[in-house]
């Protein structure tokens, strides 16, 4: 039995990013890059991710939390500092995680879910306007196109991380080192470029 009367109060200064997308879009890797960059900078970090059946084209979210001492791996509603969306409908679906002073960083990517493919449901074509009207500071870009220009459309999520990176105290060198360490060797160059283009995009706004 151990007595922890002087336990550091956790949770207070914890910051959070929610990553939302569709199974197969690579949100787990993106969350892992972000989490490791934050660790490299010295934060306590916790993440949460989805495996298994839900991945077969279903909605998926990953969460990354950081601070001095992080308790819950799950982000409470209304407390995320940023919502990183790799698909617009999924971005819209997860807005309730976002804090009033948070912002959306999303790709203008549309992946139709089965009810839309089947013609029984409408895709919310005004998703982008709805997001901007609620969180005017949000940044929505065509991430796969930007990534393609930087070398490989599959590095789309890394463009979004580049945009997000300006809001975090993690240095560019720390980011690039993490990309080099965690991304498959043949994809490092494309992801590096995608990250830098994203960061530049954010700087110019």
């Amino acid at each position, binding site marked *: 039995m151990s007595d922890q009367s002087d336990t550091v109060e956790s949770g207070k200064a914890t910051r959070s990013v929610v990553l939302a997308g569709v199974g197969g879009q690579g949100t787990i890797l993106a969350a892992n890059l972000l989490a490791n960059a934050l660790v490299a900078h010295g934060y306590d970090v916790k993440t949460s*991710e989805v495996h298994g059946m839900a991945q077969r*084209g279903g909605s998926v979210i990953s969460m990354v939390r950081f601070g001095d001492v992080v308790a819950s791996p799950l982000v409470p509603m209304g407390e995320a500092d940023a919502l990183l969306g790799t698909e617009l409908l999924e971005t819209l679906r997860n807005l309730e995680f976002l804090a009033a002073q948070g912002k959306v960083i999303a790709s203008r990517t549309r992946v*139709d879910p089965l009810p839309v493919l*089947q013609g029984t449901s409408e895709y919310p074509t005004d998703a982008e306007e709805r997001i901007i009207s609620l969180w005017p500071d949000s940044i929505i870009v065509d991430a796969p196109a930007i990534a393609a220009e930087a070398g490989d459309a599959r590095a789309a999520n890394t463009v979004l991380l580049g945009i997000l990176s300006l809001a975090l105290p993690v240095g560019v060198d720390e980011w690039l080192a993490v990309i080099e360490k965690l991304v498959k060797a043949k994809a490092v160059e494309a992801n590096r470029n995608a990250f830098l283009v994203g960061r530049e995009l954010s700087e110019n706004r």
Partner: protein
Amino acid sequence: MAERKLMTGNEAVAMAALDAGVLFASAYPGTPSTEILEVFSRQEGVYAEWAPNEKVALEAVVGASLGGVRSLAAMKHVGLNVAADPWFTLPYIGVSGGLVVANADDPGMHSSQNEQDNRYYAKAAKVPMLEPSDSQEAYDLTREAYRMSERYDTPVMLRLTTRVCHSRSLVERAAPERPARVPYAKDEVKRVMIPGHARLRHPIMVERLAEMEEHSNEFSFQRTERGAGDAVVITAGVAYQYVKEAFPGVSILKLAMTNPMPRGLISEFCEQFSDVYVVEELEPYMEETVASLGLYPKGKSGVPRVGELNVDNVRDAFPELAKATGSYTPSHPSHVEGLPARPPILCAGCPHRGIMYALARQKAIIAGDIGCYTLSVLPPLSAHDCQVCMGASVTMGHGLEKAMELELGESEEEERGTHMVVSVLGDSTFFHSGVTGLMEMAYNRGRYTVVILDNRTTAMTGFQDHPGTGMTLQGEPTVTVDIEMLARSLGIENVRVVDPYDLEQCSSVLSEEMNRDAPSVIISRRACVLREKTRREPYAISREECNDCGLCMRIACPALVKRGEEVTILADACTGCGVCAQVCRREAIKVG
């Protein structure tokens, strides 16, 4: 300070097993536990294997322990149902090398058919149980579990949950141990459970339980945190993390060892407080013990008994405690109303699609099973009638077919055929627990049809090998179970193989075998498209020939999209399987 690395709970368990000197590990893949064995198997100097099922895995691990080395079995919650037979007698015979069962519950059923609370398995089998709340504890408690196992001569349950398994947090590893092999010594009175021997062993287990409760009272990982106020929260596992944020600064008794429950510690610490709360996921497991101590805890009167916990629902469970601790609830208006749902679906080119479509059109009762193909239950395929657990398709089909016959009077012979039964299961599920069912079908003269969807892998959990792939976990060639020969050797004469991309073949073979007055097996064989990444020329719809009938939409392929009345094929998503082209009655769907 040693390097701290981000690890999932599963990785932490694997690395702790390595550092504890575990040499043998076995598992059957199952979300959320799968990566424990995958990560462990990649380490130097250890042996790991995929077993056909969890019972086999645990029994092999028992053998390895008796062989004198530390060993590990990993499984999801329902896996322990399969392994329950060895689970309950293993504590009677005890261990030689330390033995830990890493068992992962899935509150919220992210990827499971139920959300049973496996803590009761530890209690029912008199097995000590440890519950980590993050990856560091997953590491530390795994190390502790091996010491405890050898000290008390018992298996130990490491009880994980999805949010421990699949959350990453920082882990600092401790110095590795290299335990010596425990020399083999024959001891049949301890290890052969004939009734006379078992009667000697059971009292020892009961005595041991009392010793272990003392251990639980003194265990260094049981934490007390003194805060302000008259309330204390008793919690364990990941729920502890939610309590920390939901009720900041509250006094906490955080348990890491939850069987035996530390009744002395609970009484001693909690008597200092006027209000005792229990926050735990799923069943009131701890609450029952706390209540038995006369502490009148508030638990499941507020905390949900179903689904997963989080900071929000823990805070909402006890508003008075949230108020007393100054807990803050930010506003979070929902924007989900009216949004289309996004259920998981069979991939474009999935080999299950063709055969399940052909099957759905046969108007049979389809007894289904557990795997990606269960997704075919969703409309428009709607190709499952019932499903319970791994392998049950074959045996439920047997009972269904017999029942249909029993219902049938002599004079109603013509009704047969409207109640035909087909069982459907995947290759990995078949090897897991479908084989004995097939024996039942043959031995007890079933006359239905079993369809085995042989996609050459365990797809749902991430492409693990199994006895039918010809590869071991290490990717080395091994023998391949021949399903055709196996079925024939069981006494089933009618065994056919079809290509699920060939709808006409699927339909005609299904119809022939279903109408046969004998048991039959159809093997639908084609490798998982997601794993093989095979792509042929994509198909396209000719506008001249298409009359917008929408028939092709019934196969529920994510490469087909209907806008207004017009259906088009998304060339990027199409893998060229050609199933939609075979469904079309106007030959409007062609390559290119």
